């Protein structure tokens, strides 16, 4: 899985982040420092409400 930098505290925003040994990826994601580049399998569009009354 690839990650991009989302905070200047980590490096240049937008650059690929390559974690070194011992880096806690989950903590970086939770803190908003990096983002995963993997795409969600679900559509971002909200589903239509077909239950019209």
């Amino acid at each position, binding site marked *: 899985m690839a990650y991009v930098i989302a905070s200047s505290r980590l490096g240049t925003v937008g650059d690929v982040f390559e*974690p070194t040994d011992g880096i806690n990826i989950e903590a*970086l994601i939770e803190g908003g420092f990096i983002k995963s580049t993997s795409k969600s399998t679900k559509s971002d569009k909200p589903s239509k409400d077909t239950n019209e009354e």
Partner: protein
Amino acid sequence: MSTSVYLSNPVVTINSVDLSDQCTSAVLTRMIESLESTAFGQTNRSYVGGLENSTLTVTMYNSFAATETYATLKALVGTQTTVKIKPTSAATSATNPESTLTLTYLESLPIVNGQLGALDTIDITFTGGAYSVAVA
């Protein structure tokens, strides 16, 4: 006589996050536990080296703003991470070595240390991990 003077630009990174501008103190202590090896016939105690148990203690301002102190540390409590420190922000060299604790453990995190009329500061200590130093 040469000395090391820490004015304003030591670099402290915790879990790859540069928190230097929040730190006011950092103490890295390399420690190797002593195991007593004194035996009959000796007139003094003697020791040999045991397991390494180095520590990094950092004092920093507490901030709950985005990508600041709390955001960096909140998910590290009870986990292992990697921390780095070097004397200045200049390139790593023999006279500006970068010390690293890999897979060091953060046992506790003060959430609030509030005092009337004072900034919120916290002390955190990373314990254990493998110590290494880079000079280039």
